[in-house]
C-alpha cells in the first residue's frame, strides 16, 4: 500500500509539474495584463510539434530542439502580444477575451495546416526504468520532473531577484506607480508574453514526450491551467506551483484508487471546494490591498 502511495505520488508530481509550467505562464500574463490567454495551450502544442519537426527533419537532439522551440515560442508570444492584445489594452476586457478565443482557433488551425492531423510522440530515447524498493521511476518521468523543477526555480529567481523581475511584479501590483518609476510597461508586457510562451512550449514538449502532441490536447491543457489558477489564486506564482502539483497528485490518486473515470471530477471538486471556501485561492491572502 505504501509502495502504491509513493508510486502514485511520484506519477502525480510528474503530471503536476507539467500543469505548473502551463499555469505559470497563464498566471503571469493574467497578473500583468488581466488577460485570460486561452491560446496558451495551442502555443504549447505549436512548440511540441516544432520540437518533433526539429528532431525528425534537422536531426538535432532533444534538448537543442526543445531550446530552439522555446525561443520560437517566445517570439510567437511577443508577436501575439504586439499584434493581438496590445491594440486593445485600454479597451473593455471583453475585447481581449474575444481576441483570446479567436487566437485559440487561429493557432489551433495553423498547427493543423503546418503539422498535419496526426498525433506525434516526441522521441526521447529515455527508455530506462529505475526501481527503488518496489517503486518504479521511468527515466523519462524523472527527467520531466527535473526539467520542470529547473525551469520553475529559474523563473522564481528571475522574478524575485532581477530588475526585470521586480519590474514585472511592480506592473502587476501598481501599474501607474510602475510607470512613474520609469518602467516601460509595454516592454514588460512583451517580456512577460515571451517568457510565458517559452514556458508553455516547454510544457508542450514534455506532454509530447510523455503522451503525445495532437490536435485537441491544447484545450485540455488550458482548462487544467486555469483550474490551477483558481486553486492557487489568480496572478500568484507560488499558487501556480502548489496548485499545479496538487491538481496532478489528486488526479493521479483518483485514477489509481477510485477510477480513471473520476480523474476530471476530482479537478472540478477541488475547484468548487476552493471557490466555496477560499475564493481568493490557496496561496493568496484575502484583502491584501
Amino acid at each position, binding site marked *: 500500500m505504501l509502495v502504491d502511495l509513493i508510486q502514485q505520488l511520484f506519477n502525480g508530481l510528474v503530471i503536476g509539474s507539467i500543469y505548473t509550467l502551463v499555469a505559470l505562464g497563464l498566471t503571469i500574463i493574467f497578473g500583468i495584463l488581466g488577460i485570460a490567454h486561452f491560446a496558451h495551450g495551442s502555443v504549447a502544442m505549436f512548440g511540441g510539434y516544432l520540437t518533433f519537426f526539429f528532431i525528425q527533419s534537422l536531426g538535432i537532439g532533444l534538448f537543442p530542439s526543445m531550446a530552439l522551440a522555446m525561443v520560437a515560442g517566445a517570439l510567437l508570444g511577443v508577436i501575439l502580444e504586439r499584434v493581438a492584445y496590445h491594440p486593445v489594452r485600454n479597451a473593455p476586457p471583453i475585447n481581449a477575451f474575444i481576441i483570446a478565443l479567436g487566437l485559440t482557433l487561429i493557432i489551433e488551425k495553423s498547427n493543423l495546416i503546418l503539422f498535419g492531423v496526426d498525433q506525434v510522440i516526441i522521441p526521447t530515447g529515455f527508455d530506462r526504468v529505475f526501481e527503488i524498493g518496489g517503486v518504479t521511476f521511468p527515466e523519462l518521468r524523472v527527467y520531466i520532473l527535473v526539467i520542470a523543477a529547473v525551469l520553475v526555480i529559474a523563473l522564481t529567481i528571475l522574478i524575485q531577484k532581477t*530588475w526585470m523581475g*521586480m*519590474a514585472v*511584479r*511592480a506592473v502587476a*501590483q*501598481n501599474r*501607474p*506607480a*510602475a*510607470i*512613474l*518609476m*520609469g*518602467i*516601460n*510597461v509595454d516592454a514588460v508586457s512583451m517580456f512577460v508574453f515571451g517568457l510565458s510562451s517559452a514556458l508553455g512550449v516547454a510544457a508542450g514538449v514534455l506532454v509530447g514526450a510523455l503522451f503525445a502532441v495532437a490536435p485537441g490536447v491544447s484545450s485540455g491543457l488550458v482548462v487544467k491551467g486555469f483550474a490551477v489558477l483558481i486553486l492557487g489564486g489568480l496572478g500568484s506564482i507560488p499558487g501556480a506551483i502548489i496548485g499545479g502539483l496538487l491538481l496532478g497528485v489528486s488526479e493521479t490518486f483518483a485514477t489509481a484508487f477510485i477510477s480513471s473515470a473520476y480523474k476530471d471530477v476530482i479537478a472540478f471538486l477541488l475547484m468548487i471546494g476552493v471557490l466555496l471556501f477560499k475564493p481568493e485561492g490557496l496561496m493568496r491572502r484575502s484583502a*491584501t*490591498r
Partner: protein
Amino acid sequence: MLTVTDVRISYGQAEVVHGVSFAVEEGECVALIGPNGAGKSTILKAICGLLRPSAGDIVFDGRSVAGLPGHEVARRGIAMCPEGRQMFPEMTVMENLKLGAYRRRSESITPEIDEMMELFPRLRERSTQMAGTLSGGEQEMVAIARALMAKPKLCIFDEPSLGIAPKVVDEIEETLIKIKGLGVTILLVEQAVSMALRVADRAYVLEAGEVVTAGTSQEMSNDPRVQSAYLGA
C-alpha cells in the same frame, strides 16, 4: 528647469485645465495650491506623461516632455511622490525603495538606500515588511524615499499630507524642509495651504483650472483673498 506654458487638458469632451502657465527654477520649491477639483493633480499627471495635454507645452531641462510616455519622463529625471502613496503593496519596503532607483539600475544604489534609512530611521526597522501592511504615515515616508531614490532633477509631491494623522503631517513638513535643504528642486501640490506656504519659496493658486494669483509664499500668506479662502483668517 520646468516651464509649463498655456497647458490645456481635457477628459474626453470636458476641458478641466484652461491654459495654465507656471515655472519652477532649479533649486526652488514651488507650491501649487488650491481647492479640490482645481486641476492640480491633472496638471501633475500631464507633466509625468500619464495624460497628454490637448494644447500648450511642458518643457523640462530645455526639452519638451509634453506627450512623452510616462516612463520616458521619469528617465529624464522627474520623480513623483503620488497622491495616495501608491505603494507596491506585496513588495517589501526595501524593494519599493529599489524600484524608485529603477532608472539608475545600472549603478550602485547602496549609498542612497543608506541615506534614506538615515532620513527615515523607521524605514530601517520596517525594511523587510510588506509595504501594504504599513500605516499611512509610514507609507508616505516610503513614497517620499522611493521618489528620492531616483536622484531626480525635479521631485514632485502630490498631496503628501492627504489622509495622514495630523501629528505625522508635522513630521512630513519637517521632512520636506529637510529635502529642500539638500538642494532638491521641488514642486509641491497641497490642499493644506498653510503648510505648503511654510515650505515653499513661491506659490501659484489654482482655481477651476486656471491660475488666479501667484507670488512668493510671503506675498501669498499676506494676500487677503488667499487668507480668507484658504488660511481661515
